[in-house]
């Protein structure tokens, strides 16, 4: 099943809902409103996309958006489809949970919450998963500032004193340069 066929089927199944095709290369994506994410993933399941592989959060300060990216895979069609919900940036963004459809969504969503600060409505256990529970801030936000201390202990981080993250002129902390 090609990407366009999937998009066509979804558009036909949910009339009145805007699905935007994202022309990114090499993989395109389907952007959809957050209210429809549960229904669309459920419909994709009926189409044979039975496996929720990944949920990622991506922060875009330039366009002032936060994207929640879903990768749903199919065994029978041998392909993966990428769905995106584009939220406005800022604190307290929320999106419906997929825990009712996939049990694997539980931990995947917790990780997005932990790293990007997006909450999932109806999630049974919305806690941090990788960082300590009292950690402040969401590390994968682009404007995240690493705290100098955690419970009185200095945080030894390579990038703490190296200026803006992502500056290409910075020496790499390990590996690469040697």
């Amino acid at each position, binding site marked *: 099943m090609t990407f366009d066929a999937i998009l066509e089927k979804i558009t036909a199944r949910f009339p009145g809902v805007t699905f935007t095709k994202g022309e990114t290369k090499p993989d395109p994506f389907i952007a959809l409103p957050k209210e429809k994410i549960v229904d669309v993933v459920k419909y994709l399941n009926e189409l044979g996309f039975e496996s929720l592989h990944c949920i990622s959060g991506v922060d875009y300060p330039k366009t002032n958006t936060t994207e929640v990216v879903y*990768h749903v895979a199919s065994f029978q069609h041998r392909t993966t489809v990428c769905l995106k919900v584009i939220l406005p940036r800022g604190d307290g963004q929320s999106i419906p949970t997929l825990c009712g459809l996939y*049990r694997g969504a539980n931990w995947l969503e917790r990780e997005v919450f932990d790293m990007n600060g997006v909450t999932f409505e109806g999630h049974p256990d919305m806690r*941090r998963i990788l960082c300590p529970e009292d950690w402040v801030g969401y590390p994968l936000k682009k404007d995240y500032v690493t705290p100098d201390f955690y419970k009185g202990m200095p945080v030894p981080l390579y990038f703490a004193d190296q200026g803006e993250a992502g500056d290409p002129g910075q020496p790499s902390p390990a590996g690469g*340069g040697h």
Partner: protein
Amino acid sequence: MATLDTEQPLAKHQATENLRTDELLLNMGPQHPSTHGVLRVIVKTDGEIVKAAHPEIGYLHRCFEKHSENVDYMSVMPYVDRLDYLASMNNEQGFAIAVEKMLGLEVPRRAEYIRVIIAELQRIASHLMAFGTYGLDLGAFTAFMYGFRDREMILDIFESVCGARLLYNYMWIGGVARDITPDQVRMIKSFCEYFKPKIDEYNTLVSYNKIFIERTRDVGVIDLDTCKSYGLTGVMLRAAGFKWDLRKDMPYSIYKELEFDVPVGNGEQGTLGDCWDRHIVRMREMAQSVRIIEQLIDGIPAGPSRGKIGKVPKPPAGEHWSRTECPRGELGFYIVSDGSTNPYRVKCKSPCFMNVATLNDLSHGVMVSDLIATLGSFDIVLGEVDR
């Protein structure tokens, strides 16, 4: 000296209605040999029976994704090594393939051959580790010694090939860091010759051992529906009887040209998808890996071992989701590029992360010892769970 009155004390407590067993909250880990790293499982037990087990992860979190945003694509490679540190070569292959796809880069045939040979050797090494430590979990120390003996030979080959024994930084974007020499080819060939009969030996020693079967059959059963609901991949999925291997079904690199079988569990010792099935799928996969290496080792084409690529790769703006078959399941990389030298975002979807997530569902009403057997059969590496 007071004598022990054997008649009296029991009779005192005959009224059992008031007797209530207390639930005990037990912390398994973070430093516990059977958790294979720093995993903490909060186990609620009633005597020997587990009521609930909540895995707590994050003790080995090293901000891989954040680090990746701050260095260029080539410099991410050493970090990728440290995800699943028992299968570093497979991780590197996965990341390299993802970036090459974004760059639209062809990898020289010689490099592809070397990569697949090395990746399959690493798969054997990783499965040997799984076999050894699983034996250890169940009280069979012998398996551990045999597994490590043979893994050592593979590590010697890797040391000769790239200079490191655990964290290699060997597969680079566009090819491999160093070409392999005829001497190393001979080493790999003699290892395959040596190792082929060993698999049967280990099966006799461990897999078909009566005690081992009794400990693992019907324990920790994960059926196909659970697998799909959790998005499990790799050995977990195949042990549930589902024939799915990315190398076969969505082939990357040169796997399309190779002949090998995909072993699946068939519940021959108990229930489909139990611990024994997962164990035997690993054992059988090792034989297939040897088969793959033998098909390639004599015909490595001449040519460069690394393609023409600038010092700092710069993929055009865009995004890519790539999956490769690692020993523990499908390793996914979601890479977003904004056209600069550093990745804008790297998301790593590790197979073990989902494997650990299933633990709570499997633990209701089982014995504590079965919980250990189940956890061991997942073959988790915490470096990959926590990233």
